């Protein structure tokens, strides 16, 4: 029931850009609706008709939706004159991440000066990097900028986790490499980490929503791009085909020649994405 209500409320505000204010309003409406539905169920109504009655009784939301849209536009105007969006959480987050990285760099540099061996110095830097990098990614993604709203915190957390998995893989395979276990062993160690993070990144990439603010100049570009359904469809199909092909190739190569080679397919696919984007970007200009 909770999800059903949430989906309905999301639908009501589908045309409005997701801001913190809107997220909170939706949360408020959802909890009130659930209270109401539960109340009706206690009074003997069945869950389905209780839900139907409650959403019908909500009334005409257009006034509220309009006022929210207006408010986000007014805020946008104000935002343009005051281009700072950093709140206290982000300042603390960036400071902690920078401080951790700085300690890592200093201890790495110190070790390097002592032993004159790059790998040993990197070993000292790595743990600090593993802490600071996901912090930077998380706070960077949730950061509101002049043109984009901050990312939803849960989603940003998944992004930073996926990067962390990738970095852990990089460190683990670096250890293998330094330990002179051979290139094959290094790649074999890296593989599973790359696969896990690639799957998460693909999922995130395919479900990504625009967080762009709709000020006039950006709005025009955005509308120009997406108002051409043909281009958008071709672009989407090529990407989709690329990833489907990669997954198929991944399993094929994995079974045919061994899993230690097959993950490379994803690296190639990741490399192809910007090329496709670049091609469409250059076409869009004409």
């Amino acid at each position, binding site marked *: 029931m*909770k999800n059903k209500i949430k989906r309905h409320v999301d639908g009501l505000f589908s045309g409005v850009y997701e801001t913190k204010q809107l997220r*909170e*309003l939706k*949360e*408020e*409406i*959802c*909890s*009130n609706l*659930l*209270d*109401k539905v*539960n*109340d009706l169920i206690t009074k003997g109504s069945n869950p389905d008709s209780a839900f139907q009655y409650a959403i019908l*009784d*909500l*009334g*005409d*939301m257009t*006034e*509220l939706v309009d*006022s929210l849209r207006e408010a986000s536009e007014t805020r946008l105007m104000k935002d343009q004159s005051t281009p700072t969006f950093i709140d206290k959480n982000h300042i603390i987050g960036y400071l902690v991440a920078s401080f951790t990285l700085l300690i890592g760099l200093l201890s790495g540099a110190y070790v390097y000066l002592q032993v004159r061996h790059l790998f040993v110095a990197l070993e000292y830097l790595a743990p600090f990097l593993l802490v600071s990098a996901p912090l930077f990614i998380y706070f960077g993604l949730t950061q509101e900028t002049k043109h984009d709203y901050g990312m939803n915190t849960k989603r940003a957390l998944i992004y930073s986790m996926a990067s962390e998995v990738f970095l852990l893989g990089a460190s683990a395979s670096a250890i293998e490499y330094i330990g002179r276990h051979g290139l094959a062993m290094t790649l074999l160690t890296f593989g599973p980490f790359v696969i896990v993070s690639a799957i998460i990144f693909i999922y995130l990439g395919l479900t990504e929503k625009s967080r762009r603010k709709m000020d006039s100049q950006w709005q025009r570009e955005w509308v120009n791009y997406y108002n051409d359904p043909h281009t958008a469809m071709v672009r989407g199909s090529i990407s989709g085909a690329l990833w489907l092909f990669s997954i198929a190739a991944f399993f094929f190569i994995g079974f045919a020649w061994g899993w230690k080679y097959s993950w490379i397919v994803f690296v190639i696919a990741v490399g192809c994405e910007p090329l496709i984007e670049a091609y469409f970007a250059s076409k869009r200009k004409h």
Partner: protein
Amino acid sequence: MTGKISSDLLRGHTDTIVLRILLEGDSYGYEIYKRIVDKSNGLYELKEATLYSSYRRLEQEGCITSYWGDETLGGRRKYYHITAVGADVYQRNKEDWEFTKSVIDKLI
């Protein structure tokens, strides 16, 4: 009682009605809604959409403040609290209404 309530007429008073409820203590959306329906003995069927617009307006005007309650099964509840400004606005609106009512009573 056989009258019908003009929703247009009441709409202008929604903010005052909400302030009146909040004068009795902090409350959240569904409870406020239920108390309004109960108080009117079910004769005033307002829509929740009207109330959400009202909360937004009142909060912007500084008449009420809001805070999140504890997490329940359905999610967090948003509670509203009336401010001193809100209490003043309520008092003024009430006096205005009493005056309007007395004048209109003489006319219709």
